[in-house]
């Protein structure tokens, strides 16, 4: 054993910590922690206390910046909400490990943020085991928390009960971002059907849209991601259901629908003809974005249209004359528009029973989150301090030029704001780039045609156990099909394999849960 991999090291660390500290997980409340948070909301402020003493709250959340934010925002926040806050930031890259370790040692703080929807799936079991407070019954006592969208809350319920508050995200942000200057030059209108999208990629490849006389452009720049790359977005335009769909009254996974095969054929012929980057299955997001911002590719389908702002900024450095636009209204062969819709949240916050001792303490913490959903507090956490980090123009927030300052002081807190602008009343962002303004309009428009994932709030034990692994089988098969390594019969064979390894059970479990 000379070299140790970080992975096994982490695992053994978890193991040894568990061993040493399993005594603490008995909920003895002393909060002996491994991460140096001594304060887990001591029992001193019990239920008999009046509400005028500041509530002590510890919060753990993922950090998407290089450094922990300064206390500027926190100090303001404590004043506004009458609390004493301890924020524990951990790098987003290793957040799941941190979460597991803290969980194993019983040292989760009172308000524990997860990392994303996937982490939530993994936590469901622990939630069912009664490790976290159910908060559903208390929501009505809090005027602002009551505003949270019921349809999104439903997506985060476990066995019909609510345990979490959500961080909102628009339901359908996906579409294409394309070179409007190229399209204008070649007289191509925004694609209204999937065929027109194909024709656009073809023209961008073959008709020398950059006018340099060389054959050096491609249509679509895609990356090694089926869901957040181009595939899933285009599959919804073909009319493929969102993850699961109903067929003869039974739920089936998307890849058992003919539209999924159509989507695969669409990408296969795009790639075979050279209308997209050949190596997309091994291309990272950075490389795909570079392909687009270097002016070599004309269409970027990366999942989220607001990316147009950053793409535009990088592209005009290389091609000053470039103009970008967003587009998402692409009809399916059946003549209707379908848009893939996410569950409406991108992260959740949970309240562990090991840290929150009783109802009174829980209500104090919920009270803090209730205040977070007032415009004043939400703006402070999302945008920062007015005049320093942003200014208000036409009732919208305009971030200051000093992006680094905002990144350093605000970003950490920005990623923890509950709800969305509609529910917490914070300022919308002021957009000046025409393409971005168009993108925001399309996002609102998309919702009208949104297709839900029917399994969002359903349970399947097999899915929790092997979901990721099984999905890998299908993902691999999809790429192999697009690259011509297997044909449709081969794809069907992979589906059989999926069924045998637990897919069959998954279908049954989801359907049983669906019928309830």
């Amino acid at each position: 054993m000379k070299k140790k991999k970080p992975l096994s090291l982490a695992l053994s660390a978890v193991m040894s910590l568990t061993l040493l500290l399993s005594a603490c997980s008995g909920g003895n409340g002393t909060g002996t922690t491994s991460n140096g948070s001594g304060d887990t909301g001591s029992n001193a402020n019990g239920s008999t206390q009046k509400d005028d003493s500041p509530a002590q709250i510890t919060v753990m959340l993922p950090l998407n910046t290089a450094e922990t934010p300064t206390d500027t925002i926190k100090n303001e926040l404590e004043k506004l909400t009458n609390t004493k806050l301890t924020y524990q930031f951990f790098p987003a890259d290793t957040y799941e490990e941190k979460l597991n370790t803290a969980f194993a040692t019983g040292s989760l703080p009172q308000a524990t943020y997860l990392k994303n929807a996937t982490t939530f799936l993994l936590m469901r079991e622990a939630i069912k085991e009664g490790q976290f407070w159910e908060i559903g019954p208390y929501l009505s006592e809090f005027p602002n928390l009551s505003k949270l969208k019921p349809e999104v809350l439903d997506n985060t319920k476990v066995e019909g009960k609510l345990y979490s508050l959500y961080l909102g995200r628009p339901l359908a942000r996906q579409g294409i971002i394309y070179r409007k200057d190229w399209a204008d030059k070649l007289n191509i209108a925004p694609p209204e059907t999937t065929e027109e999208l194909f024709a656009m990629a073809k023209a961008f490849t073959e008709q020398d849209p950059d006018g340099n006389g060389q054959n050096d452009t491609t249509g679509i720049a895609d990356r090694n991601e089926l869901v957040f790359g181009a595939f899933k977005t285009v599959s919804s335009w073909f009319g493929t259901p969102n993850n699961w769909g109903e067929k003869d009254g039974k739920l089936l996974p998307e890849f058992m629908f003919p539209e999924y095969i159509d989507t695969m054929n669409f990408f296969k012929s795009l790639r075979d003809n050279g209308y997209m980057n050949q190596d997309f299955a091994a291309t990272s997001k950075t490389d795909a974005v570079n392909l687009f911002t270097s002016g070599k590719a004309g269409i970027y389908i990366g999942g989220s249209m607001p990316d147009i702002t950053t793409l535009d900024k990088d592209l005009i450095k290389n091609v000053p004359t470039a103009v970008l636009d967003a587009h998402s209204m692409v009809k399916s062969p059946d003549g209707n528009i379908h848009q893939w819709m996410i569950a409406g949240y991108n992260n959740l916050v949970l309240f562990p029973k090991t840290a929150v001792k009783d109802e009174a303490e829980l209500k104090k913490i919920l009270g803090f989150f209730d205040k977070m959903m007032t415009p004043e507090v939400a703006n402070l956490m999302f945008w920062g301090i007015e005049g320093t980090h942003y200014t208000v123009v036409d009732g919208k927030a305009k971030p200051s030029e000093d992006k680094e300052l905002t990144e350093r002081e605000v970003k950490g807190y920005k990623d923890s704001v509950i709800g969305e602008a509609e529910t917490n009343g914070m300022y919308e962002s002021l957009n000046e780039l025409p393409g971005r303004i168009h993108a925001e309009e399309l996002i609102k428009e998309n919702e009208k045609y949104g297709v839900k994932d029917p399994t969002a709030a359903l349970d399947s034990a097999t899915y929790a156990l092997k979901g990721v692994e099984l999905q890998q089988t299908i993902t691999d098969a999809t790429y192999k099909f697009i690259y011509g390594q297997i044909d449709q019969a081969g794809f069907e064979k992979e589906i059989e394999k999926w069924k045998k390894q637990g897919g069959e059970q998954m279908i049954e479990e989801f359907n049983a849960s669906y019928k309830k």
Partner: protein
Amino acid sequence: MEETVISRQVTKTQPAWRKRFWRNKLLYLMIVPGIIYFLIFKYIPMFGLVISFQDYKPFKGILGSEWVGFKHFERLFTEPDFWNILSNTLLLFGMNLLFYFPIPIILALMLNEVRITFFKRFFQTLVYLPHFMSWVIIVSISYVMLTMDGGIVNELLVQLGFSKINFLLSPEWFRPTYIIQVIWREAGWGTIIYLAAIAAVDPQLYEAARMDGAGRLRQVWHITLPAIRSVIIVLLILKIGDVLELGFEHVYLLLNSMNRDVAEIIDTYVYTAGLRQMQFSYSAAVGFFKSLVGLVLVMLANHLSKKMGEEGIY
């Protein structure tokens, strides 16, 4: 730990080893930190292996989780991809041994023959620098060179009238890519120990050989190689001990949907199947199995080397 020594002087008051121990107490004190390190970081975590026989739940802890016997091992051995993953791992390891292992030796011998000290130093530094680059950087450089979307290698192939080769996304190119990257990064670093061993060879042996009319190659064959033979054997055994340590990060970065059939190894499987889905018990069981394979191979290699009349590592 302590060496029991057969004592020649029979003393009635205290055994000889104790005397020797006491005389060298400072030397023994020096190994205490090492022992403590191994206890804390290698031996105590081993108790964590018990979770591979449980349905481990983090919030219940090791003491509270349910015992399930060999359930996770059964799942591993009945996994349809299991034999594929194991054979991928062993194949990749075999190639590592065959193609990578001799290279540092050859390189060390070549460097040793360079007579001008400045050049020797210069080349040595040049070949071991890549060791300090992370796999992420190396794989990214390879991507830029090998991609079909404007990679230098493929552009060159087209210029020369060949057709493009899909290096990144074809099962047959995965292993060569992997091995070449390993050689490029590690070969220079691997020469350090050999060069040290070569430096310890008595120069008189070379003089004697020259007197007998041995040329450069003869000297290498009859003197240098036998001199570093035992070092090679020890390193080989240690390498075999790492049979399944192929570098998770490296393989994971090269892994994609198109080459998974040949590139999925035990480490990457543990990551996708276990840790990403919080299945600690299953991951621990897979890791446990891996360690056992490594242990068996080391004992085998050690046994063989003893048979060959070499030292071995224990």
